[in-house]
Every structure is written in structure tokens, then in C-alpha cells.
């Protein structure tokens, strides 16, 4: 995923970005990943879209997304957190939380 280098740069450079703006950027990335993977239109994806029921994502596709997000945002997404994820917005919130929390 060569062109996914910029989001991380964007985030590191613009630490002043506020929460809604950062979440918008994460949503944009996520929409791009999902449209590449599922061959659907970006307009089919909203924050309240159910990832399993509506997008019909299977467990392998979910982990493909997770592995990509982990790489782009330099985060670790543990299974306990993923178990709670139901909508596209939940994924965005999780990525936001994990990428902004201080490293342990």
C-alpha cells in the first residue's frame, strides 16, 4: 500500500489538528482501504455503516484492514478492542484513540 505513507506524515506534522479533523482524515483513509478491498463506492460508507452486517466484511478482511491500519498509523490494535467494533465510526474512534494515546 504505497500511497498510504502520507496520512502518518500528515498526523505527525500537524499535531495541532483537532479531534474532528483527525477523525475525518482517518475516515478518509479507511474509506479508501474499504473501497479498494470490497470494490464498493465511497458513498456507500458512512460512519454509522455496520462493518459486518452492511459491508459483509469477513474475519480475514477485517484483519487485512487491521494490519494495514496498524502499519499506516504505527499502532497496535488488540483483539479485545476489535471485539467491540461494530461500525466504521467505531474503527475511526479506535484508531484515533490508539494513535493519540501516549506509548506505554
Amino acid at each position, binding site marked *: 500500500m504505497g500511497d498510504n505513507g502520507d496520512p502518518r506524515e500528515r498526523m505527525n506534522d500537524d499535531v495541532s489538528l483537532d479531534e474532528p479533523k483527525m477523525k475525518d482524515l482517518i475516515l478518509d483513509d479507511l474509506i479508501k482501504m474499504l473501497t479498494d478491498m470490497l470494490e464498493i463506492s465511497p458513498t456507500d460508507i458512512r460512519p454509522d455503516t455496520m462493518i459486518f452486517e452492511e459491508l459483509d466484511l469477513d474475519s*480475514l478482511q477485517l484483519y487485512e484492514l487491521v*494490519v494495514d491500519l*496498524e502499519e499506516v498509523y504505527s499502532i497496535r490494535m488488540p483483539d479485545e478492542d476489535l471485539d467491540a467494533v461494530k461500525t466504521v465510526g467505531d474503527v475511526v474512534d479506535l484508531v484515533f484513540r490508539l494513535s493519540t494515546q501516549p506509548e506505554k
Partner: protein
Amino acid sequence: MRAEEAQLSELLVRIYENVLLTEEQALSKGYFSDLSNAEMHTLDAIGPYEARTMTETATDLGITTGTLTVAIDRLVKKGYVVRKRDEADRRIVRISLTKNGKLACRIHTKFHTVLAKRILEPYSPEDQEKLIKMVSEIDDYIASQLKRYSGSDSIRKTAKKVAEEGRRRE
């Protein structure tokens, strides 16, 4: 042997065998059917995050680096592992998982957690705690027994002792 002893002894062996068999079956019918159980555990030992050295990984798996090299060759060929020279010290080779390797590793971890989740589900939180405590005690005891045999020298010594005792009895 008391009935309880016979039963526990049989259960221990059966759980061990069936967990392995279930993993093998799940693997062969899943997305990563070109991986053997041993190969999956090698990926697990490398882990989805930082690149690791051969020595570290071999120690975790309890195998020699020679054996690991053969396994890694195969996993590189299958596209699950990449080898890279350490930037700071060119003598060190680090191994890490490719995207497919990471996927296999994550799905495999999920297999184990789902299995554990289903086992715990029927019990109350108190009983779950008790069950984990008792199983941990079993684990500790068996690990302490294994320690007595660890190191090839002590295995030979133990084997010699057992053989001598056997001869004396004859």
C-alpha cells in the same frame, strides 16, 4: 490407579491431542492451508510486530537455530516471512512477517482466544477464576516436571539412571 487418577490422566492426554488436531483441521480448511501447525507456531513466535533475531526466535520455540533456518527458508519461499540485515550491525539477520504472515498470525491468535472464550463462557465469573487457578496449578506442576529434564545432559543422565534402575530390578 484410582478412578479419578485414571480419568485425569486420560483427560490430560486427550486435551493435548485434540487441541493439536483441532488446530490442524482448522488450518487445513482455512485461508492458510499451505501452512503446517509447526509453521504457524513459528510465525507466532516471530509475532506480528518488531523484527526478531534468529536466536531469540529459536530460543522461544525451544529449537536450534539450524532447525529454525530450514523452517524460515520454507516460510520465506511461501511468502510469509522476510529476512533483513540489521541496519546498525550487518552481521545480524532479522526476520519479520509479511502482510500475509501477519494475517495468518492474527487469525491463529484469534482461533486460540475464541476456543478459550467458548470454554469459559458457561461459567460464572467466580467459577472462571477458580478454573483458571486450577488449570494454572496443573500447568505449573507439569512445567516443574519438565525442568527436571531440561538440557540434553540431564536428559541423558535421567535416561541412564532409569536404565540402571531397570537393570537392577531384573
